[in-house]
């Protein structure tokens, strides 16, 4: 018994259990989010959405996933095969790794690194690489368009995102996610830093390629953007990564601004997930309300409005902290 306890307590076992839990969470979460998106969209559009499979269509996405697995993996002629095959895997790995440092509650965290926030931001940048790989190798002009747009967009929006996060880190004095949450036990940072929260949500929407900033996969212009040529499970991996990215973006927003696991009565994990899904609902709300921005307007918006605002916010934060 002691040995088992020792084994479970060890770092290695913690990682193994953690990774399995993450993979389970990622799949279940993606299935749930796709169902949620369809329901949210439907109710905003005066229709019921999926209703047939399961109560209120709850396991519709499971059926869809099975269907996708059964589909043929088409590799079009003249594609750059190794890159074409790698891209869906490359987009999925960093997404999984980001979960390592997300604190679901004060104890529910796989590895509490002291550079947690940097790790997430670094891994989220990697998704651009795979989008570029997918677009470039597809031998399709629409896919290349989508990839190029995506790179330009992500570079433009990463800067205000980082600068915004910096202003929070200045206040806490630590990159550790648990420290950031602990600092909000009294007052959530969304109250102290409302501008930073708005900037962060805007940038996160662009980073996750969600409407109104979904130009890399703008359906009416680019058919499906970078994943035009992907079918079956390869397409599903892109889809899965998109929804998991959304979860990570919402989780980071919860940690940085909404007080993480803090909340009365309910256990910390429940509060954390509630807040995350509330932020995700906000992102879905955007998507089903706004038209899409034009590419040049999107980039102009980042460079001329978001980046100056983020810097102003950082300067004011620094000034206030210095004076205090």
């Amino acid at each position, binding site marked *: 018994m002691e040995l088992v306890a020792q084994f479970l307590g060890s770092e290695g076992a913690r990682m193994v259990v953690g990774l399995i839990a993450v993979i389970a969470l990622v799949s279940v979460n993606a299935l749930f989010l796709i169902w949620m998106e369809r329901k949210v*969209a439907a109710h905003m559009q005066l229709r019921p959405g999926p209703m047939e499979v399961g109560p209120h269509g709850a396991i519709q996405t499971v059926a869809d996933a099975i269907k996708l697995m059964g589909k043929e993996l088409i590799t079009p002629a003249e594609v750059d095969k190794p890159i074409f095959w790698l891209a869906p895997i490359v987009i999925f790995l960093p997404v999984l790794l980001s979960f390592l440092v997300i604190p679901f509650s004060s104890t529910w965290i796989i590895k509490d690194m002291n550079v947690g926030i940097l790790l997430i931001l670094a891994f989220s940048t990697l998704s651009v690489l795979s989008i570029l790989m997918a677009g470039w190798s597809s031998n399709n002009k629409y896919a290349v*368009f989508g990839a190029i747009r995506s790179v330009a967009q992500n570079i433009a929006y990463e800067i205000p995102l980082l600068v915004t996060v910096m202003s929070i880190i200045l206040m806490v004095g630590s990159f550790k996610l648990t420290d950031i949450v602990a600092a909000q036990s009294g007052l959530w940072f969304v109250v102290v830093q409302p501008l930073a929260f708005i900037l962060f949500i805007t940038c996160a929407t662009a980073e996750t390629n969600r409407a109104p900033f979904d130009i890399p996969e703008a359906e*009416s212009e680019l058919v499906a953007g970078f994943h035009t040529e992907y079918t079956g499970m390869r397409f599903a991996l892109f889809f899965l990564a998109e929804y998991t990215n959304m979860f990570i973006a919402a989780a980071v927003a919860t940690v940085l601004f909404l007080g993480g696991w803090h909340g009365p009565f309910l256990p910390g994990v429940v509060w954390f997930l509630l807040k995350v899904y509330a932020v995700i609902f906000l992102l879905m709300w955007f998507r089903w309300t706004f038209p899409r921005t034009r*590419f040049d307007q999107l980039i102009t918006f980042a460079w001329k409005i978001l980046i100056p605002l983020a810097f102003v916010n950082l300067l004011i934060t620094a000034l206030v902290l210095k004076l205090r």
Partner: protein
Amino acid sequence: MTELLGIEEKTYTLNLGPQHPSTHGVLRVILEMDGEFIIKAEPVIGYGHRGHEHMAENRNYTQFLPNLARVDYLHALAYNQCYCMAVEKLLDLKVPERAEFIRVITCELNRISSHLLWFGAYLMDLGAFTPFLYCFDDREHLLDLLDGLTGSRLTYCFFRFGGVPVDIDADFVAGCRSFVSRLRSRWNDYNNLVTKNVIFINRTRDVGIITRDQCIKYGITGPNLRGSGIPYDIRKSEPYSAYPEFDFEIPIGAKGDIYDRYIVRLAEMEQSCRIIEQACNQLPDGPIMAEKVPKRIKPPVGEVYQAVETARGSFGMYIVSQGDVKPYRIKLRTPSFANMSFFPEMAVDNLVADLVANLGSIDVVIPEIDR
């Protein structure tokens, strides 16, 4: 810069369509591109060519009537009306007043359904999905009304030479009234969610401008022309049917950009509502068919031209009769064809995103171009 690096500047060709989400049918555009900028746009039409004009020569007058609903499937009743009026002119038939009123009411309902569909589909082109379903919800009530009367939901073939086959009842009139009040209650939502939306304004203001001179040069008609500030509407300039009886305005824009065309179409729906209301209030009693409609339509030798205002512009029909049961020749002047001819000029020096916005804003129906 490119010269310094010794790179040759190259353009490339992008093939947009015929299967593309936003070409609204089978239109193909061959684009010469430099990066995301369009250097040259060449529309390729004819994928949906059915030879309606030739078909007309091979069947009798009555048999050609259903064809017209397939030319412009979104405003089929205006095409019905145009053809019926042209043949009535040849036959020298007098259509009873009640029939004219029914024609106007159904035609205007159809115009609203066409504009509503444009509104939804256009916003979908711009990436907003939700307005599409709101419009279809509104449109559903309208289609139910027309379905009850005409028996079809899209490709109506309702008018007959000399009048209409079915009379409208009190239920239909009440349905029209409730539809009009329902649609009016929606303007607020549409304006708040779309017309005042910053992203929408940025996408449409000063984009895709058609100047007055260009309109006249290319023969552009309909809301595209009125968006550029020219108040030309066949319903006013060459009044036909019962239109002179009603009080309505011709909304016009100022600049001729996409936003103006959008505003004009929204305002036109409101004007159509006014016409429907007035027609319902003043609906006269009487027969719905002309008295002496021949069993066998065999017009005397002659030529006739008739134009009507459809949702897309002025549609003209030229019929040459040689005293046979079949027309000798029918020429259709379709508004979308003329409107589309301006498109290559409009697309140049813009982004691909604007190409989609421009193409949607001129509201083309591809079968009308291909015929």
